[in-house]
């Protein structure tokens, strides 16, 4: 590419473009070349469906990266250039105009891939394209701030180790089970999201109960307790790697066999699937999602449920855990164990709607209005279930987003985490 370094604005755009190109792998190139502009992806995206505004067509959100590819990298583009048939140079202004599309209107939920006849993974491509926006520093302020917090304090919400310790102590008292922090040689290391530590600390107590019941040797670290990864959301490889590295270092330092990914969608994706690629090697331990572990424990008979919940409940599938994480059956099996009236919503499982807050959208106040509108699709799914009382979801971020959305709608529906629900129905054999 031509590197005109004279004007500073051009430099930002150039940096973005070189990132776009760097992250255009064979898969990305195939996506760009195969797209037939059929617009089917729009039918899957809650941002389009709730606004009917065609600019929210998923593939359209990728336009800048697509243009960079067609101009600089696509096979045969040199011949097309001879005839002036390549797109124009991308400008900084263009990127700025696009920033709301890239950051506010995509949850990286991957639903559009299911509707696309070409199977194009738009979510992952958005993730890659955000790298360019980070390079050009065209990023929503809130995400920048979260990133700064995470790098400085370990937590995007500035939750300090002291706060964690306080919450753990409180939970010990509540459930009467001792929790050993920073235990070397434990089998399992639990990491959490700031949202859980501050907003839903009951989760810690619930885990303590469940693990005691199943006889699991576990610990929480005061050095690496944060599971979320803002680098994945903002689209910064470096940040994402730093944050993953912290967990990996601590897990290997403590010598655990497993790291338990908590009820958080993108945290699972960050550590389980993207992590080894970020740090460039595989781990000395295994990453297991809490749902996977619970499912394993119940099928092995190490956990038993004594009672069933009589309320009419449904399961909200967190995109990164279900559609893009592959854990479709596990949460359902677990729920069926403890629920009398478990009702699936329309499109449940792999084609479920995102809560509207994933991919950094809920952390980005600029997107608040759009997010609220996208939530309409989710709300519709809930409304379609007669007599629904409770929504279960194994993701703390989905949980807050759903709670906020329901509150906006003055809905009496309640939301609860899956492990928390399970803990309520444990059959305590030993006690």
């Amino acid at each position: 590419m031509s590197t005109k370094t004279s004007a500073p604005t051009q430099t930002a755009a150039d940096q973005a473009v070189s990132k776009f190109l760097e992250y255009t792998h064979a898969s990305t190139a195939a996506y760009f070349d195969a797209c037939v502009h059929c617009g089917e992806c729009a039918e899957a995206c809650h941002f389009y469906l709730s606004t009917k505004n065609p600019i929210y067509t998923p593939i359209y959100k990728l336009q800048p990266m697509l243009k960079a590819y067609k101009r600089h990298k696509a096979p045969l583009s040199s011949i097309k250039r001879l005839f002036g048939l390549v797109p124009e140079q991308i400008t900084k202004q263009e990127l700025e105009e696009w920033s709301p599309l890239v950051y506010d209107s995509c949850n990286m939920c991957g639903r559009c891939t299911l509707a696309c006849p070409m199977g194009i993974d738009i979510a992952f491509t958005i993730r890659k394209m955000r790298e360019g926006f980070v390079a050009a520093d065209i990023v929503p302020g809130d995400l920048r701030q979260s990133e700064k917090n995470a790098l400085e304090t370990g937590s995007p919400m500035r939750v300090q180790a002291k706060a964690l310790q306080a919450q753990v102590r409180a939970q010990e008292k509540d459930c009467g089970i001792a929790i050993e922090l920073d235990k070397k040689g434990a089998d399992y290391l639990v990491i959490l999201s700031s949202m859980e530590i501050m907003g839903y600390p009951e989760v810690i107590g619930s885990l303590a109960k469940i693990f005691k019941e199943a006889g699991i040797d576990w610990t929480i670290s005061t050095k690496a307790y944060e599971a979320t990864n803002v680098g994945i959301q903002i689209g910064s490889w470096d940040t994402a790697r730093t944050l993953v590295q912290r967990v990996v270092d601590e897990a290997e330092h403590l010598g655990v066999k497993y790291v338990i990914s908590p009820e958080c969608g993108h945290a699972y994706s960050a550590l389980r699937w993207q992590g080894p690629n970020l740090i460039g090697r595989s781990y000395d331990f295994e990453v297991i999602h809490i749902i996977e572990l619970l499912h394993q424990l119940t099928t092995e008979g190490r956990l038993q449920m004594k009672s069933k919940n009589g309320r009419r409940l449904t399961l909200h599938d967190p995109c990164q855990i279900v559609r893009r994480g592959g854990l479709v059956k596990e949460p359902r099996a677990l729920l069926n164990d403890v629920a009398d009236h478990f009702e699936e919503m329309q499109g449940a499982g792999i084609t479920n709607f995102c809560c509207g807050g994933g991919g950094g959208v809920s952390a980005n106040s600029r997107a608040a209005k759009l997010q609220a509108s996208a939530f309409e699709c989710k709300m519709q799914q809930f409304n379609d279930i007669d007599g629904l009382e409770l929504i279960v979801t194994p993701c703390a971020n989905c949980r807050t987003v759903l709670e906020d959305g329901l509150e906006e709608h003055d809905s009496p529906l309640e939301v609860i985490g899956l492990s928390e629900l399970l803990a309520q129905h444990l059959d305590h054999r030993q006690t």
Partner: protein
Amino acid sequence: MGHKTFSHAKLTLNSNQLSQGIAGVFLFMAAFLMLGSLVFPTNAKASSVRPPANATINALPENSSPQPAPKATGGFVPGNTLGNRSQTSFWKSVRDGAIGTRDTMQAFPSPLIQSQGQDWRYLRNNYISRYGGWLLIGVTGLIALFYLIRGRIKIKSGRSGAVIPRFSLTQRVVHWFTAVLFILLSISGLILLFGKHLFIPLIGKTAFGVVASASMQSHNLFGPLFIIATLTMFFVFLKGNGFKLVDLKWALKGGGFFGGHASSHRYNFGEKAWFWWAIILGITLSLSGLILEFPWLVGTNMWPLLAGLAHGGAALLMIAFAIGHIYIGTVGMEGSLEGMTRGSVDENWAREHHDLWYQEHNKEATGDHPPAKAQAATSKG
């Protein structure tokens, strides 16, 4: 939605470019049809791959000016042909439609030879093509005159910026599907009807043979699709096209085309007339077309002849009205086309042209694009 002013909207086509584009495509097609015949007039000979299916018809050698027929003497036709004696009484009974029987095909007696083809040819050439030609020229002239006098009918109060959904995606797709086929069929059909007068003097008989053969093939190919299109269009646009009393008033006021205001519901009298015109003639065209393509479907030889006349007549009547429809849908009236492209129309357009419909639907007006909830309005009709 904050993104309305995106500078990259240039990626998309606006409706002007679009209509130009469409027109361009068809002009281009018509042009190359003619061009094709101009460029390769002398190459028209039998294919090298395999002999033509109806080689007997096509094998007329070029420039084979027909031999002057030898004179018949004393009722005897010269040459050594069978039945070389001209029997006046025999041909008179043929002319009268004599009934006979044959051993194959049909169990009941019917005419074996008939001469109505002569009448058919007379009607086709002297009425359909002559008056039909004048009809099309006349309609085009009237529209041109109207345009010169009245100009483009603008949205008087300007655009409001708010839009109301008017046609659903299904309606739009069905409309354009029908329109594309109709235009393809019109072009090929008109070439078949008028081509010999227009083209033969210009490009000669052989070249016209090429054009005519091509037109016939494409006409036969697209015809059956048009039947499906017409039927679908009937169901998709039926709602709201029933005549009401306001329509009479509208018609009496001349539709407000020459000033004044004429009230109307979703469709005005003109549009309703066009709907029924297109459907009834479309069905006529479909049925007669089927008979022409599959004459064995109907028993006697009269039917294909009648079908031929009906087909030509109906086609010309439909094309004549279509010219007006296309005019008013594009150049003639500001703000109409977008209803059929984007699916929604400006609020002020609705108020000025379909006030009664507007009063029912103005609550659905929104920003620049149809929102989720407004979708219902389109299906309500």
